[in-house]
Structure formats: structure tokens, C-alpha cells
């Protein structure tokens, strides 16, 4: 039997059909096959550091803890797609803006994964009210992402700033910032 498998996945709204080794990790697929190198590897696939976190079907997962073949038919959002969910061309997503404004990153290596976890956290906060956005709850939600530069406080502040900005938006606009399916539809319309 074959050691490869053909998969079709949607990444940041774009559909890819690729034949990949079964043993290929999702993170290697993203970085090596479709050349989206914004997703990083920090613990060499141990699954602890969280730098490789991406959003698969609305849930933050570590892309080194999933095989590429397991994403067949699924939709993935990576850091490269985040900006496309912002309110307008050239604008950053409020999560990115929060990091920028509060100096939530230094070397930037953990940042992509950190923001993808936060995407999941804020989406779930605005949809079901959990987690609450106390500093403590934010810290707990980020247990799966290690940062060695910032000491985390500025990241917590970045989440608060992003949340405040999203909170101030009309519901529809806010939801649009989390609507990954929108990316695919935009593409189709074009």
C-alpha cells in the first residue's frame, strides 16, 4: 500500500490538493509543502511549546500534534490568514493590533502560535462567554504557549486590548473577525 495520501485542505481560504507522506506532520505540510512559514516549530515536535498552533475548524491545535492527512477536508487558519479577517485591506486583526500596541512580542517566534490560541479564546469568549477575560483566566488559557522573551504580562495586556476593541464593535462586525469561512467565500466572489 502507498505511503502517501492525497488530501484537500483549505488554508486561509485557499484550497490545496496535495499528495503527502502519511507520516508528515501538519506543521511540516504548512511550512514545507505550501510554504507558509509563519507557523513555527519551537520544541521540535514534543508538543509543549505551542509555537506551531493553528486553528483547525475553529479550534486552536498544535500543528505538530496532528498529521497532515488528518486535516483532509478541513479548514485551517494560520497567522498568515489572520490579517484577512480584519475590517479592511491593509488593517491588522485586532489581536495583531493588541500585540503591536502593548509590545506583546519581542523575538516574534512564539507570537504566531500565541495569536492563534488567542483567536480561539476570544472567539469562544464572545460566543459562549467563556473564558471570562480576567488576567488570570487569560493566563490559564495560554498554558499551551511558551514565550521566553516577554514574561507574558504584555501578552495578557495585548489580549485585553484586543478584547476591548472587539467588544466595542457592533456584533456583526465583531463576528466577522472570527468567521474563517468568510475567507473562502470572499475568494469565490472574486
Amino acid at each position, binding site marked *: 500500500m502507498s505511503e502517501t495520501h492525497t488530501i484537500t485542505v483549505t488554508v486561509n481560504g485557499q484550497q490545496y490538493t496535495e499528495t503527502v*507522506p502519511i*507520516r508528515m506532520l501538519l506543521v511540516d505540510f504548512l*511550512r514545507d509543502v505550501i510554504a*507558509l*512559514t*509563519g*507557523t*513555527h*516549530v*519551537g*520544541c*521540535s*515536535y*514534543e508538543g*509543549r*511549546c505551542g*509555537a506551531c498552533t493553528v486553528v483547525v475548524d475553529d479550534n486552536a491545535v498544535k500543528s505538530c500534534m496532528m498529521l497532515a492527512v488528518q486535516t483532509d477536508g478541513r479548514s485551517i487558519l*494560520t*497567522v*498568515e490568514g*489572520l*490579517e484577512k479577517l480584519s475590517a479592511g485591506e491593509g488593517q*491588522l486583526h485586532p489581536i*495583531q493590533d493588541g*500585540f*503591536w*500596541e*502593548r*509590545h506583546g*512580542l*519581542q*523575538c*516574534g*517566534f*512564539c*507570537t*504566531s502560535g500565541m*495569536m492563534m490560541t488567542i483567536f480561539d479564546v476570544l472567539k469562544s469568549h464572545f460566543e459562549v462567554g467563556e473564558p471570562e477575560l480576567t*488576567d*488570570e483566566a*487569560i*493566563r*490559564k488559557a*495560554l*498554558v*499551551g*504557549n*511558551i*514565550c*521566553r*522573551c*516577554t*514574561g*507574558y*504580562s*504584555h*501578552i*495578557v495586556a495585548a489580549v485585553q486590548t484586543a478584547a476591548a476593541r472587539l467588544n466595542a464593535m457592533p456584533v456583526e462586525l465583531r463576528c466577522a473577525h472570527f468567521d474563517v469561512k468568510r475567507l473562502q467565500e470572499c475568494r469565490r466572489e472574486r
Partner: protein
Amino acid sequence: MNDEDVDGAIAVAPDEEAERSRARKKWVGQPLKRKEDQRLLRGQGEYLADLQLPRMLHAYFVRSKHAHARLLSIDLSAALRVPGVVAGFTGADLLGMGMRELLIPDLVPVLPGELRVPPCTPVAVKKVVFHGEPIAVLLAENRYALEDAAERVHVRYEQLPVVIDPERALEEGAPRVYDEWPDNVLYRGKMGNDVSEAFAKADIIVEERFEVPRTGASPMEVRGVLADWRDHVGLTLRTTTQRPHLLRLAIAQVLEWPEHMVRVIAPRDQGGSFGTKAPLSREDFALALIAKQVKRPIRWIETREESFRAGVGQERGQIHYMRLAATKAGRILGFRDRCIADVGGGQQPVFMGIGFPRAGCFLMTSFYDIPHAQIELIGVVTNKPCLTPSRAFGSLPTRFAMDRMVNRLARELRLDPLEVMRKNLITKFPYTTATGNYYDSGDYVGSFDKLLRIIDVEGIRRKQEELRKVGRFIGVGFGGEVERSGVSSQAYVPRQRKPGYGVAMVKVLSTGKVQVALGDPPSGQSHDTVISQVLADEFGLTPADIRLDYGDTLTTPFGIGNVGNRMSSYTVSAAVLAARELKKKLAVVAAHDLGVRAAAGQFEFEDGNILWTENRDASIPLAQVAKHLIELPLDLPAGIQPGLEHTAYYEPADVPNMTGSSFHAAVVEVDPETGELKILRYAVVDDCGKPINPLIVEGQVQGGVVLGIANSIFEQFVYSDTGELQNTTLEGYLMPSAADVPNVECFDHNVPTRHNPLGTKGKGEGAPAPVPGTLTNAIEDALAPFDVKITELPLRPERIRRAVAAALHITDRGGEPSPEAPARPALEGEGEVYELLNEMYRLLDGIRVSLQPIWHPHIGRIRAWHHDYEQTLARVVGSAAAIKALTAIYAGETESNFIATTSPELTAEWRRLEELPRPDSQHAYLEFILPAFEAHALLLTALSHAAPVLQ
């Protein structure tokens, strides 16, 4: 946004806030949002692992599986047969290709005292001295093939006795790491002055031993190299490094290649370094050689396990024996310290594991006015990877020892530690310490008093009293540090034979934009933003008009490296000097073009214009003057050459260094039942001279303190007696997450230095150092009713609980922790056969140890045990001599007796596992343990068959 927002550290965007800045005429001092973030936030960073070249091969370092052994043979043949594998090289192969000794005199520090230089080639040839030392390199078309091949490398070792504990290594008769040395001392030296009088006058002498294990910085991005050789062009080596220029020079020196044929490039983005990328890696040299041989680009990205095993992030590792002399009023008269640094193999260029323990000792007196100090430093080699530098550069253990010692003194004297600390603060600047360190500026009393106000010590004391009544224990502790803002040539040239200057090349473009080139590459320290703010002020532009490049040895000036707080003191000053040189030239041409008679000093640069201060209507766009100088070089004033480029060097003119400082306070609550620690507040008052960007300064302090907390409470590299690293994963190493650490409250009390153009001092290096002392002082304060004493790190709850129990003379029922299974007595007999058999049993024991429940952090280890065991077993079964020896040992005994005599526990475990129903395949623990036992059964079968034949 209003002014209050700025003070509350809400960042300012360059475009939005340009107007306001113009009103203030200053970018320096603004909490500007970072320029580098635009690419990083979009996933557009360019880290080493993101770089690829056509025809690129992937490299894998085969590493020693023993901590101390002779390499008898390395067989790569099976590995080379794996499809996709292109080549393999052992150390011997590399010798044939021109590999040389690494620690040439240019790469060895010059230290007062005795220093021995260990033998070391980039890849080991005959002997390994630590587990994880590189012994061969494989190249393949993809990483899958590489790892498939790596499993098929067969190495024969002759194991040698291992020494792990540095104090044991100093004992008479300890195994020697280097055969040709008489003992295990790499370095022995003294610093300080005469302390006899201090001790003679003392009312009280306090003695203590402190121990800080190996921990450090471990950035999120591991190391990597992309090496590319082109004939007639030479080597282009992209690598994760803080000092590309030094690496280029070293490659040329070590490999004896022409320096101009070596180009080292640090990638635009690096995922943190914290000192770990300051040494020159052995892997860089090996891959440079191999790239030349195979003439194809080669990329190597290490794994986290590999990184840990190679010693990246393994700093600290010091033991201190301190004796402190003081008056009964708590005035410190002097101290003696004997520092034992566990330098591992010591095989790293530039520092050799000893440079930073020495720096730590040099800074040991810190902010205390201690007239007499005498420190003996002993660097001891052990069978561990070389101690590598990390943020705080040797100072974390020395700060722990010193700040703890002052606390001990206060408690002995029944004085408030705060009073004792305050009483001994340095009050006059400049100041030269007993070890000869020069402090140019500071206001320690001012900083300390500010911290006391912030913390509200009296309030805490009241609360402490109240809470104690209900069985809760809070406490407050203090610490601090003095850090050098870079080191000048005055200090570097004699010690490292390397310069200390800061250097920057500044170029004004024809359109009035500015381009800056630095030799030293950042790895998260915000160079782009900082330089842009500074030069925007100099040239009267906005930060968006400035471009920064760095790290390419072909296009940037030689720099010592992005290390030790150099950026905002040395490098920024050089950029300012370069800009001012160019401004002089611009002013002369501006005067000429405006047709006014004015001196260069009479011009200001504002809003893109050059203005005559005597008559501000006389103004000309900077771009117009630049265009004149670059594109239209006619009608220039006399003596003015075309072009607008200048490279400037900066050193403080008359002093060896400039010094910043920080004072720390922690308020903690400790649960005496469990020893669990909660940091209620952590506050820092910091002096960086003049902050260029307060937001970035705060980021450095936050990050530095949290690294200190990680090193103090959680992290520790643990080695077994056989020299194997026990925690090779981030989880096993207990790297903390956001939920494990507190917010840090950051304040400043800045005293600008007079020795550079902006008054700036560096910030970032020192922040972790005071953390363990501060926390421990707070813990002891909280637990004062129990009178506990803590002298070792990490401050894990179990350690604190044990200190409480010890103070109360309680013994918590139960045994001690057992990190290792009891060692099996070796089979007696001599020669290779017995070594083989003992090796087999050692591995089997390893597997048994890994049957312990929390095996996940040790996955790599179980696999290694298992793999090696199978290989060794195959050799035992295949060796008639081994079988014969075994048979002889157990002649006449039945199979079960044989097992029982070798290991009753193992037999029981084996029997138990054997009788289990065949587990489902999810049952991973049995999945790979069982085969080992099955293999063991095979051996016994082989024996039983062989026995009659042999008899």
C-alpha cells in the same frame, strides 16, 4: 489618546503620532510601537528555518550516547544505504578534510590565574566527554531519510568512568575528564583584595554554602545553520548567532581559510538568543567544512532534545562557600568566597564555560559598599556539555549567594534585612568595587527608597501580623543588581583579545532617507525601532524614514556581537556619532546652498529640513542637500567630498564601563503545609540612564524577571550518575507558562551616564539575576516563625516544605525522592566482554527505571535505552566469547536462578509483564517495554542453547 495614556505605556504609532512628536521635537523617550512587529505579526519573519536554497541537503549530527567513552568505531554503512541519504562523515573523515583543533589561542580567554585548554575538534574523533557530543554527520535529501538513517548508525564505545558532581570531580582519585590533565581543574584564579583586616575587626562572621544548579535561557528558536559553498566565491554561512563577525573570523582562523572568502550572515529574525547564541558552535565549523566538500547547500536545524543535550541554555551551575565579616550594627566589612563552577567539558570557544562565572564573581559585591572581598574561582570539568552563557551572564548564582548572605547576616543580628541592605548601599559615584569593577553612575539609595515606598513595607508588616494569626504566611524580600552596559576595549582586549567598541555605519540616501548597518544582529531586542527613534531625532526625520540592516559580515562593520547590554549604550552611541558626522557635512553644504555664512554647529535638523538657528527662515530640505552631495556633485564647498556615508566607533573615553542597576522586591505567600509559593507582588525599580523607548525597556525588565523566576522556581537540568540528561523536553524541564508566573510591576529611577551622547545605559542582561535572592528572602521572611533556611535552588514547593519540616523537626512520613534506581553491582571480570555485558545490564536497568510512571518527559531516553539495549544484546548473542563468559559465570545454574541472581526485581517485573494479556496497541508503555523483555528472554534462550555446546 492623551498624555496619561503615554505614561500608562500605551504605545504610539509612528504615523498617527508624528504630529505630537513634532510638537515635542523628540522621538527618543516615546513608547513607540515597534517597527519590526509589522512583519512578525503577519508571519512574515525570516528565521533561519524559513530559509531554503536550491539543491539543499539536510544535515543530522550523530551524537554520543555516553558521557565519557573512547570511540572504537563508527559504522555509517547501513545508514548510507537508506534511500535519500547522500553522505556521512565521521570525525576521522573530517580530519582528512581539514578539520582542526577548535580552541586556538585566539579563541581562548586570557585570565589571571591558571587556565588549561581542553582538546576539542568540531566533531569528536577519538573520545567523547559528554552525552550528546557530536561524533558524525549525515546528509540526506529530506529529514525523514535522515532520521531513518540515524537509527542505523552503529557506534562502538569503550566506556570510561564518569564524573558529574563538580565537588566530587575535585576529590583525589576522581575520574579524570581529560586523561592528559593531572586533575579536573580547568581554571583556578583569585580576584579582590586583602580581607584579613576586615575579618580581624569583625563583630560577627557568617558562613554559608549556596548551590545553584544548571539552568538558563533556552530561547524558543533552537539553533540552525544553512551553509553554502561556491567555488571562487567561498562560504556563505547563515546561522543563528549573536556574533557573526567573530564567527567569520574564527572560521577563517580555525580552518585556515582566507577571511574574505567567508561570509557569515545572521538571519533578519532570530527567535531569541539570551546569550545562548553568543558562543561559536562546533556545528558551524563542521558544516562549513562539509559544505565545501559536497558543494551543495546544507541546512541543519537542531531538535529541542539535541539543543538541551548540547548544553544550550545550561548556565548557572555554581557552588559558593561564603564567609562574611560585619559589625554588630550590620555594616559589612568584607567577605571571602570560594566559587566552584561546573564548566562541563569546557570546550566552547571564547568563554570555555568559565568567562561568565568569572564575570559573576567580578560583579559579586554588586550595589553593596563592601571594601574588602576575596573570591577564589575554580572551574571544574565534568562529563557534561560545556556550561554556556545565558542572560545574567554568571551573575544569577552570585547574586543569589550575596543577597542571601546579607539576609542571613541580618537574621543572625536580629536586624531587619531591609535596614542592613540599605545601610550597606553604595552612595558615592564613581565607585570602584573591591574586585576592581568601575561604576560610573547611579542613585542606589534613591532607587531603594522608591521601591520601599512602592511596596509599602509597613503595610505588609501589619498584614503579615494579622494573617499569621489565622495561619497564613506572607513575607517580603529584596534584592538587586548592578549591570555593565556593555564592556569597553579597556576590559575586552586584555581578556578576550577582542574590541569593545560600538560601531555603526550610517548612510543618508539621495532622497533624504537613512540607512543604518550594524554588525551585531538582534534577536528580539527591538534594534530597528530603537535606532530609528534615535536617528529620527538626529536628522529631524520620522522613524519610518530610517532603515536598519545588520548581521551580514560582507556589508556591515566588524562588531563584537549583540551581547551584554551593548545596544543602547555602545551601538546607539556609535550611530549618533556617525549621524552627527554626517550632519556636520550636511550643514556645511546647507550653508553653502543657502548662501549664508554660518558654522556647522548653527544648524538644526527638523521636519526634514536643515534650519539655520540664527534665521529660521533660512531652511533647506535635507533631501535637497543629500541629492546635491550624492547625485549632483558639482559646486560643492571647498574640501567637501561627494557622498553621505560614515562609520563611527564609540567607546566611553576615560572609563572601562557604564553601569545600570535594578532593585527588586517580592511579596509572597507560602503555604507551610505544601510549600506552595504564590508571588503576590513583584516590583522592580530600574535605572537604564535614559530610556529610548520606555515600552521596550519595560518589556526587557518583564521578560528578564520572568526568566529569573523560571530559573529560580521551576527549571533545572538534571543529570544521572552516568551523565545522561534526565529532562530533555520542555515539559520535563518545567519551562513555565503564563499561568505559572506573576505580573511584574516596573518602575524607574534613571540616572543618565555622562559618558555617551544620550546618557543611555543598556538594559536586559541583568534582570534575572536578583530574582532568586529576592524570592528566597521573601520566603524566609514569610516563614520566619518557622525559622527556615534555604540555600539551594530551585525553590520547588517540596524543597520549601522540607525546610519547614526540618525547622519544625517533623519528618513527613515516607521515603526520599529516588531519581535513579539503585545501581546494580557490576559483573566482575575484565576485558571487552565484561564491558559489553555490563553495558547490557546498565541498559536493562535504564529500561526498568523508565517503567516509572512519569515517563513522558523521558520518552527520548526510553527510546535510547531500548534501541541501545537491542543493539548491545545483538552483539552479546553474536559473541561466542560473551556467551562463554556468561555461561562460565552462571555455570550450573538454571535459567531462573540466573535471572534471580542478576535481578530479583527485574524477574518479578518481567514475570508480571509476561503474564499480562497481550495489550492493545494503544498501551504504549508496554508496547515498547515488552519487546525489551522479550529480547532478554531471547538472550536466555540463546544462553541455554549455547551452554551445553560450550561446556
